[in-house]
């Protein structure tokens, strides 16, 4: 009869920058079971909706998370606009798509850097973040902020991008393609990296579906689940396919995110070619009444915004279900049977954003 030890993998850990607590039940060096605890950064932002005007709440929604901030603001705006039946002008839709894709590129580059840091490859980490700086410069030139964009607004967008600026952005991104490829090739081909990733943390296709995995976690196991196919913002007019890999281990989840990087550069190119002149916002009058479920695709997966309004200027209920919350159950399944040293690497493959999931 083997003896089990329980190791607390606490909210403060030198390897993992996320405040999640796991109680790992170990049999020698192998993990038998993991029990999660979250709630260390719970701010109660859903309750704040009772005090802030529904138009001003965009600023709070954007600050739920630092990395996926624009898409939070965008989903809130879409939820309120669908309740009030507002038609956003096409130029604003294209601009929103361009900023969403820039947000996705910077988030995936950030993740690649943290992932390399988790298995000890610091120089690769620094190089990924060096590339990310150049994307943040593009974002700051167009919106004014490096991480918190401040450009989503109910009824449109707040700032415009001129035609010359758009062609400049597309040219810069094409030039970065070669540098990004040089760095991502190291993830895909280097022998020491592959030793840590291939065959580790396998999640089968049925398990991923049953446990409700979303985003690259699900797409790495063969499920083609991508909310951008719903056609919100300008995605209905862009030609793209969800990126799917079939092996279900950490290597395929990493490959999905790398391929999505190049797909985002393509999508921005298509948007810049199709965008037309026009107004960027529409005036909002009246108060919202009704409810709506809005689903969009963040870099980490599917986010659901449920807004319910009853005719006053404060919303009655706002519920945010973030992708990390949905991936937690799948992560617990992945951890069963792995070695103790692989635990931080596996937690990072779902791209945890605990500050989002606890609002």
């Amino acid at each position, binding site marked *: 009869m083997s003896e089990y030890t329980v190791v607390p993998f606490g909210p403060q850990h030198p390897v993992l920058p996320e405040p999640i607590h796991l109680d790992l039940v170990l049999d020698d060096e192998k993990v038998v079971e993991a029990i999660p605890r979250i709630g260390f950064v719970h701010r109660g932002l859903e309750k704040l909706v009772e005090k*802030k005007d529904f138009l*001003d709440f965009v*600023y*709070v929604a954007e600050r739920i998370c630092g990395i996926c901030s624009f898409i939070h603001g965008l989903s809130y705006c879409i939820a309120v606009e669908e309740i009030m039946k507002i038609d956003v002008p096409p130029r604003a839709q294209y601009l929103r798509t361009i900023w969403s894709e820039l947000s996705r590129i910077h988030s995936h580059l950030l993740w690649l850097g943290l992932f390399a840091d988790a298995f000890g*490859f610091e*120089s*690769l980490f620094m*190089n990924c973040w*060096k590339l990310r700086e150049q994307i943040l*410069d593009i974002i*700051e*030139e*167009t*919106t*004014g*902020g490096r991480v918190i964009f*401040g450009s989503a607004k109910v009824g449109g967008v*707040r*700032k415009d991008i001129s035609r010359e600026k758009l062609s400049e952005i597309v040219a810069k991104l094409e030039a970065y393609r070669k540098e990004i490829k040089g760095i991502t*090739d*190291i993830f895909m*081909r*280097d*022998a020491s990296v*592959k030793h840590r990733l291939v065959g580790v943390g396998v999640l089968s296709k049925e398990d991923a579906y049953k446990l409700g995995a979303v985003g690259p976690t699900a797409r790495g196991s063969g499920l083609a689940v991508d909310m951008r196919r719903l056609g919100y913002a300008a995605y209905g007019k862009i030609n793209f396919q969800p990126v799917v890999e079939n092996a279900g281990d950490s290597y395929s989840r990493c490959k999905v995110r790398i391929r999505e990087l190049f797909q985002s550069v393509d999508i921005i190119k298509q948007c810049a070619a199709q965008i037309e002149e026009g107004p960027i916002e529409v005036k909002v009058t009246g108060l919202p009444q009704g409810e709506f479920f809005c689903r969009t695709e963040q870099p980490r997966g599917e986010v659901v915004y449920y807004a319910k309004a009853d005719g006053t200027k404060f919303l009655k209920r706002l519920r945010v279900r973030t992708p990390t919350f949905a991936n937690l159950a799948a992560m617990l399944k992945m951890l069963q049977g792995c070695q103790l040293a692989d635990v931080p690497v596996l937690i990072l493959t779902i791209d945890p954003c605990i500050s989002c999931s606890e609002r």
Partner: protein
Amino acid sequence: MSFFSMAKTVLLSLFRKPSTRRYPFVVRPFFKNTRGKVDIEIIKCIFCGICQKKCPTSAINVFKVEKKWEIDRLRCISCGLCVESCPKKCLSLNNQYPASMTERAKEVFPDA
């Protein structure tokens, strides 16, 4: 499968100049659109109070009687709503970040 793929980058970096800026000798230039701090031309202000109503964090206080306009820099999130809604266009968003403070004081602009 490749081995030592990072070795080339690491060795070349011995001979290239550093990738980081040598602050404070080299300062990063801000962009034109950067949202820094809010500035006011107090001469043009009519103390209507619209900026106070629009501010999402209640960082601005307008005193109509004493003709004073004050802002709490630590609460301001540089969103720019006050700049857009001022009827006299006396507010503007400077692209330098506000200086650090040692105590929580509000910045007051009296109409002298």
